[in-house]
C-alpha cells in the first residue's frame, strides 16, 4: 500500500506530531479491546484442551492440537475444499464482474436502472441469500418443477442433494451475491482510464480487443489484484452461506475449513481444537496474501 502524500507544511511541531495519534486513537482503542483481546484468547485456547461440556479435562496441552491437525483427514479435505471454493468463486466473480462492468460502462437507454438492478444482490446477506436460493433449489418449492413441465430436466432433481451438482449449485448462489462487488470496483476504475489513452489507441488503428488488452487491462491491474485478494479472504472466511445452504453436505462434499471449525465449536463443543484450526487458517491466509501481493507486483509502477 503506497503511503502518504507529503503533509501540508504548517502547524506547531508538537501538536503536529501528536495530531495523527489523536485521530487514530478511538480506532486503536476499539481494535485493542474488541479485536486484539479476542484474537489473543483464540491463540490461548489453541494451546489448551478445552471441550465445553467436559470441563474436568481442561488442560494446557502445548502443540498437541496442532499435531492432531496434521493427522486429521477432515482438516485436509476441508482445506482442499476451501482452496477449490475460493479459486472457483474468485475467478468466476472476476470474469463475470469484468464483463458486467464493461457492459454497463457503455452508454445506452436505461443504464442507470440496469446498474441498480444488477448490483443489488450485493446488499443481500449470506443468510438471506440462502433463504432465497433454498426456495429456488428445493424440489417442493423450486424452479425445477416448472422446468420439468416445460420438458427440461426432471421434477425430482435436487441439485443440493447430489454430490455431483452441489458444488456448482452453491457456487452459483454465491456468485449471485458476489459478482456485483467486482463489477462495481472495476467499473469505478474503468471510468478513470484517461480518455487520451483510448484516443491514442484508436489512432494506432487498434481494434476493440487490442485496446482492451493493452489499455484497459493494465489500467485495471491494481484494482483487480486488490479486489481478488480481499474477496479471496472473505470467501475463505465466510461460513454463512455454506453453513445454511448445504451444512457442508452431502457427505462432507461442501465442508470448508471455517465450516468444519464452526461444526466443531457448535456441535462437538471442542473450542481448543477449533481455536487451533482457526490459528492455522489465519497463518495460511496471511502467507498466501503476502505471496500473492509479491507475485502480482501490486502497487509497482507499470
Amino acid at each position, binding site marked *: 500500500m503506497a503511503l502518504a502524500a507529503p503533509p501540508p507544511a*504548517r502547524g506547531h511541531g508538537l501538536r503536529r506530531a501528536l495530531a495523527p495519534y489523536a485521530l487514530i486513537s478511538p480506532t486503536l482503542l*476499539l481494535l485493542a479491546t474488541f479485536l486484539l483481546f479476542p484474537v489473543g484468547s483464540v491463540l490461548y485456547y489453541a494451546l489448551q484442551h478445552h471441550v465445553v461440556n467436559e470441563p474436568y479435562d481442561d488442560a494446557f496441552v502445548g502443540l498437541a492440537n496442532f499435531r492432531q491437525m496434521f493427522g486429521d483427514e477432515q482438516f485436509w479435505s476441508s482445506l482442499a475444499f476451501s482452496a477449490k471454493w475460493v479459486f472457483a468463486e474468485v475467478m468466476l466473480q472476476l470474469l463475470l464482474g469484468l464483463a458486467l462492468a464493461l457492459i454497463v460502462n457503455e452508454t445506452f437507454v436505461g443504464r442507470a436502472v440496469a*446498474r441498480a438492478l444488477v448490483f443489488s444482490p450485493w446488499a443481500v446477506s449470506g443468510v438471506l441469500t440462502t433463504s432465497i436460493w433454498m426456495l429456488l433449489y428445493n424440489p417442493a418449492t423450486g*424452479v425445477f418443477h416448472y422446468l420439468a413441465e416445460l420438458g427440461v430436466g426432471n421434477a425430482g432433481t435436487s441439485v443440493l442433494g447430489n454430490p455431483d451438482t452441489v458444488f456448482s449449485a452453491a457456487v452459483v448462489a454465491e456468485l449471485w451475491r458476489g459478482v456485483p462487488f467486482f463489477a462495481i*470496483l472495476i467499473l469505478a476504475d474503468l471510468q478513470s482510464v484517461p480518455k487520451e489513452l483510448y484516443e491514442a489507441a484508436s489512432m494506432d488503428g487498434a481494434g476493440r480487443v487490442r485496446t482492451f488488452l493493452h489499455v484497459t487491462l493494465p489500467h485495471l491491474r491494481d484494482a483487480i489484484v*486488490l479486489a481478488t485478494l480481499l474477496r479471496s479472504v472473505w470467501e475463505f472466511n465466510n461460513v454463512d452461506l455454506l453453513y445454511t445452504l448445504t451444512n457442508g453436505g452431502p457427505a462432507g462434499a461442501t465442508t470448508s475449513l471455517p465450516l468444519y471449525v464452526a461444526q466443531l465449536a457448535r456441535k462437538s463443543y471442542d473450542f481448543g481444537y477449533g481455536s487451533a484450526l482457526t490459528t492455522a487458517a489465519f497463518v495460511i491466509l496471511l502467507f498466501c496474501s503476502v505471496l500473492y501481493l509479491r507475485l502480482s507486483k501490486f502497487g509497482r509502477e507499470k
Partner: protein
Amino acid sequence: MTAAAPRATGRVLRLFLPLALYLVFTVVPFYWMLLFALRPAGSTSLLPWPLTFEHFDTVWNGMGFRVYFQNSVWIALLTLVFVTFFALMGGYALARFKFRGQRAFLLALLCTQFVPGAMMLIPLFNIFQTFDLINSRWSLIIAETTFQLPLAMILMSGFVRNVPVELEESAMMDGCGRIRAFLAVVLPLLRPGIVAVGSFAFIGSWNNFLFALMFLNDPELQTVPVGLQTTIGENTVDFGALAAGGVVAAVPVVLVFAFVQKYLVQGMSTGAVKG
C-alpha cells in the same frame, strides 16, 4: 439495408443479450422470493395472484418484525455514524500525516481482514459481559463498528488522498486552522467517500446475524436477520413467512444500495483504495 444495421446487430449481441441474460440471473431469485411472499400458501401459480398480504401481516405483526425492523434500523444507523466518523478521523490521519508506526498501523488494519468473526464470539461475549453490555444494542453497535472500521478507514484515506492537498493548503494560507480548512474545503469534496463508507457500514450492520443472535436475548431488542431465522422452526417451515421476512430484510438495503451505487462507482476507483 443501411450500414447501421449490422452495427446495431453487433451491439445487441455484444451488449444487450448478455445484459438481458445477466438481468434474468439477478432478478429471478428476487422474483421467486416476492412470489412466495405475495401469493397464498399452497398456491403454485407463477404469478403472485390472487395477491395476499397475509404473510406480511404474519411476520410484521404476528412474529414481531415491526420491532425487529426498528431495532435493525437504529443499530445500522448508529453503526454508520460511528464508522463514518472514526473512519474520517483515521483516514485523514493516514492520508495527510506521516507518523511513526504508520506502516505498522496500516498493516494491522489489513490483518484484521483475516480474522474470522465467528471464532471471536465467545471472547467477545465475555468482554461485553464485563462491560455489562450483553443484551444491549450497544454490544452490536460496538462489535460492528470494530469489525468494519479497518476497511472503512483504508477506503476513506484513499478518498482523502484524492482531494488535492493544495486546496487545503491555500485555505490554510487564508488563515483557516486545519480543522476549519478540513470542514470547509475537504469535507464537501469527500461526499462520495462518506456515502460509500457509510452505506457499507449500514449494509454490513443490517445484515449481521451471528452477533445479534449471541449478544441479544430480549425479543424486544432483536434484529431482522434473527427474526428471519425464527420463521424456520425445528418442525416447520412457513415458506410464505420466510419469503415475506426476506422481503422485509432485503428492501431497505437494496433501496439504499440502488440509491448510492452511483457514488460508489464514482468514488471507489483504485486510486481511492491504494492511494
